[in-house]
């Protein structure tokens, strides 16, 4: 078992070769990606950073199989993504991919539990089981008290935690996140980012996230800089932010956080032993 795992670990889970993406708007060609070569290992947490319009989102969408490339090869989990059609891509996403959105994209008329259980319903899981899994995932996110809340009854940070739970509940190999903290204030951003990274690390999942905020990028192990549709720099981050202790903030916050953290820890343990 261990040997197999190690052998798998030696292979990159995401590999791209000379990926190009050209949008045609009217008679003008916009080259969003001009030949991207990447290789990401299983369990790695990667952030993609770059100025606006540099092609970060395009790259992420292409990697998540939401969009076809114009040319080049993408191999994810041993499969050629660039050769797949829409339905095959959907099946691929079902098996391998979780997605965290900038604007949360929760179903407004569903409760937290129903939202998290939703992707499991597409996999044909019976309702009781998927709601049990959803409750578990929400508790891991520290939302044990908000199970029956609708998105409109939750704060942005809480909504994004629901989004994270939804991305993780299907137990995907890779989670993609496009500006997951883009709609949150900086304190909440740190909280959410910490949660994401801790959970991802504890489950040994691969995370690819896009951000234009250098602070957020520092949460990852590896930082890929993109400029004008090309990878211009790849940095290893020796000290990912989520490993450093939390900075002290206002007293009220701290109290609340402590209680939340305690809950998180407890639930984390539960989740881990069950998996």
């Amino acid at each position, binding site marked *: 078992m261990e040997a197999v795992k190690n052998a798998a670990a030696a292979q990159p889970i995401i590999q791209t070769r000379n990926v190009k993406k050209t949008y045609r708007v009217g008679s003008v060609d916009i080259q969003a990606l001009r030949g991207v070569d990447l290789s990401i290992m299983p369990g790695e947490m990667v952030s993609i950073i770059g100025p606006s319009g540099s092609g970060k*989102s395009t790259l992420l*969408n292409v990697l*998540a199989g*939401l*969009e076809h490339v114009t040319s080049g090869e993408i191999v994810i989990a041993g499969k050629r993504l660039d050769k797949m059609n*829409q*339905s095959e891509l*959907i*099946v691929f*996403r*079902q098996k391998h*991919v979780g*997605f965290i*959105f*900038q*604007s949360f*994209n929760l*179903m407004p*008329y569903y409760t937290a539990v129903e939202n998290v259980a*939703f*992707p499991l*319903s*597409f*996999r*044909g899981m*019976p*309702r009781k089981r998927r709601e049990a899994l959803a409750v578990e995932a929400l508790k891991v996110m520290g939302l044990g008290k908000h199970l029956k809340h609708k998105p409109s009854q939750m704060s942005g940070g809480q909504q994004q935690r629901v989004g994270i739970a*939804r991305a993780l509940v*299907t137990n995907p190999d890779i989670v993609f996140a*496009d500006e997951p903290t883009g709609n949150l204030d900086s304190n909440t951003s740190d909280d959410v980012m910490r949660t994401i990274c801790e959970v991802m690390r504890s489950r040994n999942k691969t995370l690819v996230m896009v951000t234009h905020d250098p602070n957020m990028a520092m949460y990852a192990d590896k930082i890929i800089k993109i400029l004008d549709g090309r990878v211009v720099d790849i940095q290893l981050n020796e000290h990912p932010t989520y490993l450093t202790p939390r900075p002290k903030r206002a007293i009220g916050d701290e109290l609340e956080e402590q209680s939340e953290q305690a809950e998180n820890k407890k639930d984390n343990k539960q989740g881990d032993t069950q998996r």
Partner: protein
Amino acid sequence: MKFPDMLRTAFLNLWRRKLRAFLTVLGMVIGTSSIVVMVSLGVGMRQSMIESYASMGSLTNITVNNYRYVETADGGGTFKDVKLDNKAVDKIRKLPGVEGAMPQITAWGMAMSGKYATDVSIMGIDMEQAELFGIKLEDGEYPGNKLAGGKVQMLLPYDFYNNFYDPNANRWSPAIDKDGNPKITSRSRLKLTFDYSNVYTNQPGDPGQQKGKIYTLVPTGRLAQGGNDFSWYCIMDIKVLEKLAKENPNRISLNKKNYNQVIVKCKEIDDVLTIKAQIEEMGFGASCIQEWLKQSEEQLKQTQYLLGAIGGVSLLVAAIGIMNTMMMSIYERTKEIGIIKVLGCRMSNIAGMFLTEAAYIGFFGGVLGLGLSYGLSLVLNNFLESSGFKSIIPLYLAVGALAFSVVVALISGLYPAMRAMKLSPLAAIRNE
């Protein structure tokens, strides 16, 4: 995605936009009920038509004649005699689906009472088969098979007493008193003869012949008015008629080797036309009310199609309404559809979800539409009672209409569902 999940999700999607869903369903209600009510009127017309034919005689009877129509080389036609004897009757009786075959012997005579008389058509039948052939009595009982003391027992036509007249008056003088009531009634004494010179004093009769006997007519009952092939006949037992024929050799001609007519009774109404064809194949001429019914049904069909089409127009409008609603909701839900695609909802499930929504609209519209139709049908029947129109909703129409409205809804949901399938998952990411 499991089917119950699909049903639930689709229902919730409709429920989220209650008013719009309700209005779309309302369109379907009107569409369904207009088609059902229109068709029910057609069904009612057919029913009344069948009833009116049935009152002309039994729908399961075939009349077989001892002649048939043949086309000649010059394009015209002529009647050709065929032999309709006991052997032929036996053969017909043995055809599958035939319940009985009754040779008809007919004779013509006159009934007299005082100075009044009336012509009568007499039919001799096998009394045991009388009930089988639907010879129903208004009152009284079936006649016996004895001819004793010059007394002839027979059944009289329903309106027998209305037809007496004075045969020897100079002008037409019916036996009716000044109040318009018949002078001859069931209390009058009746006589029967086959010799017209017994009735018409100015007819000397054939000098070379004996004068015909005068019998006492003993009515045993009256035939029922409708639903009867024989209601205008006087009916007696075939044996009595045979004896009478023997006693009036030149005035009644019975030929047991060749019957004029044989009435064939079929077991099932649906077999009548096949049996008729078989009898014709044997070389006899045959006719039945079913034939006429069939022709009228063909004509009625056109009216029914027209009615159905009128109703169909509003169903078509409702179907376009469904399509419109679905398209609207797809435009509104572009982002949502993108999200569920990113979350791994399969194409077939997306299409399934939209089709299920459409099917719900069709189903609820159909059910409520049927309810409305039954109500309207009730009201119409109250209003139309006098005009002869009728609205009938048979079970097959109800079930068919429900299935039809679901199918129509599914068809109108098809294009929106395809559009939804084609939407890009990127819609989830774009921020409007």
